[in-house]
């Protein structure tokens, strides 16, 4: 039995400690906002925050998450109030939308570290997140918009 703190809530999970966090989130806890895309840390669809760091939950064993704070897209804010979620909606970034939770979770860490990221900063931070629909231009724009909004708060 492993206890995980996810979105400020404790969950007791009956699973092999080697199980990737992704599958525990999805199959055991029912938080399905974190997506499976590749299983080998190549696409970024499964990005969550582990003590504030962006990690790929498909290769993060639950034993590593034990005793740490996990934040998933469901816990990023209440009512889509995070500046990134607002910017994503303002610019209507999504097409199929499957990758967007991972995109937002990666972008959230970037924005925490760089208040006013350049295009280059965004490209560097987001290079690990694939969007097959090709919404990259809007993702860049939305991150800039969210940065602006955060700075004028």
């Amino acid at each position, binding site marked *: 039995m492993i206890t995980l703190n996810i979105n400020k809530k404790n969950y007791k999970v009956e*699973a*092999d400690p080697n*199980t*990737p966090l992704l*599958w525990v989130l*999805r*199959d*055991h806890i*029912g*938080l*399905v*906002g*974190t*997506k*499976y*895309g*590749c*299983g*080998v840390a*190549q*696409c970024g*669809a499964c990005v969550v925050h582990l003590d504030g760091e962006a990690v790929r939950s498909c290769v993060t064993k639950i034993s590593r998450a034990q005793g740490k704070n996990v934040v*998933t*897209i*469901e816990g*990023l804010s209440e009512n*889509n109030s995070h500046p*990134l*979620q607002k910017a*994503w*909606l303002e610019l*209507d*970034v*999504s*097409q*199929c*939308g*499957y*990758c*967007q*939770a991972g995109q*937002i979770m990666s972008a959230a860490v970037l924005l925490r570290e760089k208040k006013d990221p350049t*295009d280059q900063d*965004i*490209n*560097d931070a*987001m*290079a690990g*997140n*694939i*969007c*097959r*629909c*090709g*919404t*990259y*231009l*809007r*993702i*860049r724009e939305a991150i800039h918009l969210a940065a602006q909004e955060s700075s004028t708060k």
Partner: protein
Amino acid sequence: MEKHKTDNSRRTFLKTSLLAGGGLMIHFSGLAKLALPHNDDGVPVVQWTEINGYVKISPENIVTIICPNPEFGQNVMTSLPMIVAEELGVDWKKVVVEMGPHDNVKLGPQFTGGSNSMRMYWKPLREAGATARNMLMLAAAETWSVPVEELTTKAGVVYHDKSGKNATYGELAAKASGIPVPKGVKLKDVKDFNVVRSSRKNVEGAKLVSGKPLFGLDYQHEGMLIAMIQHPPAFGMTHKSFDASAALKMPGIKDVFTIKLYEEGFEQGGFDVRTFNDLIVVVGKTTWEVMNARKKLIVEWMPVGDVKNTMAGRDGKREVVIPGELENTTTQLQKMLEYAKKPAQQLRKDGDPETAFKNAAEIIERTYNAPFLAHNCMEPMNFFAHVTDEKALLVGPLQAPGWIEPTLTKILKLPADKIEIQMTRMGGGFGRRAYGHYLVEAALISKKAKAPVKLIYSREDDSTYGIYRPMYTATYRAALDSNKNLIAFHVKGGGIPEHAIHANRFPAGAVDNYLAESWEIPSNITVGAFRAPRSNFNAAAEQCFLDELAEAMGKDPIDFRLELLKKAKENPVGKNNEYDAERYAGVLELVRDKSGWNGAEHKKYSRGVAAYFCHNSYAAHVVDLTLKDGHPYVEQVFSAIDCGIVINPDAAINMIQGAVVDGIGNSLYGGLTHKNGVVAENNFHSYRVIRIQEAPRKIDISFVQNDIDPTGLGEPPFPPVFGAVANALYKASGKRHYQQPFALSKIEASSI
């Protein structure tokens, strides 16, 4: 189609269904939700009255519009209901959108693909909205004993100005639903539109950015098990024997068994692909447990040899032999070279091309090649199935429910009205999810496991058990006279296992002597629709060739195309030309203006142009490219599009931007290779897809403004990107690129 389904229980159920949180895909705007009565659990409870298949209204005047077509990112869940809302005369902000179940009788063809949604539903949805509005007005006229002609509507309310009476649609709905459906109701003048042609946000946007369950992979069902398939490692192989004892001992594992998709002699329809007919299945409690157990299977594989398939067809069934060879990319290329030399099937001939080529002062001949492509939908293939002896419930991501249902009826031996298919949002489709073999697999697994089961493909399964874009080649020849006039044009194209030639497309119709031919090489590698099938190759090859031709003739590439189009318009050659030369020229002229074709911008970058017509819409792009350390980077793109009326402009722009990015990615990096039948690129570390740092800084999109009925947008902007990228690459490197993908190795700069 399926006439026996007209009055099934689902229809009756919908008439007065209670919305008690059970709907997987019900979408309230904030306002609508507040207006609803709630049950003790805070769940909205609504008594709906169904006016027609697309419209249902509650007494509180909540208007629900049903989206018939599955959503895979093209935004139909927003744009199709917008059409209904326009004619119905309701406040869009208060509309609730719901994804419809599969029901071809009530909801039409329900096919997402071929850029057909708008084209297919434009008229039916306008009529559905206008007819529903008319029925509500008739109900009011009857209630108030006034002539219907004296009534007006605004934002979901019917008004009678003379008496000062008014009633909401909700108050009138029950009565309206009993009125015989009027015919020939007048539609709005397109000039009066106020919902359509203005940008409306994605109705699922808020759910997407907060991680709500929307996709097939997110679907949950009581008692649901997880299943994965172990498919053969190579095309042309099958399992000889297997030992599941170790797998069965793994935690969480319920069963390991085999399924067979089609029995001998099964008449396959066009979308029933038979990639691997015999599959080993592992069923267990959770995805990770099943993934791990699958690794413990010990399987002996063997070549399956030549396979005889029976295909259903309009002219009766026919036998097709699928060769058993374990293919290699190098031998595939060699084979294509051999076939290209052989006589081919003539697709179209105008004038006397043979004589024209004989008399030519100069002949230009170029051959273009393109590899297999994988769709790489971000959400791997998956489907939920719960099949019993009496009925089947299937839920998941699917483009064309109406195409797989007949197959399921035969395989499950159940009548169509006992097969319920619900479509979730799809994490990408690109044509891949038009092939419902994974529903057949899920259904057979559920039946055998006697349990509700969700079949999940791993990324590797998805990459190596694909329905790929075929491998293509085409040789283009042009005959010039001594004055460098184009006197004949010849294209001979082939592919594994299908060719890509559209014989009646431009420049057919613009050249006096024209010949189009094709050939095909049978293969066991399964192929199918991939975003703008065939066009995605032609627009690359033909548009590069036209560029090279213009250069040889000393002409500007846009002027040269416009000259040909002028001829096709004023004095068309031959019959059955598929395109409208004036609209084709229109996008070229627009992109020339918007890009400042020969202006200052031109000097900063290596610039290429291409235009193409496919799926009833027209697209032209100007690509501005630079080489950075030998790696091409597309800095900016100008796009001009003619798709008639643009339903939802911002969403249309989003989709075109996406198509441009996708086109850049696939032209520069896309490709799938085989070694002894094994797909070499099985995940994103080896199959390169475009990433954010490779996406342009800017994509500037312009629409030709007209009032022509709308046509599709998912596909048309995609193919010409390949050609424009190749032509820009030539300007940057001084070398023509004939083999896709263009940028797997470094490219030396040498400006033209």
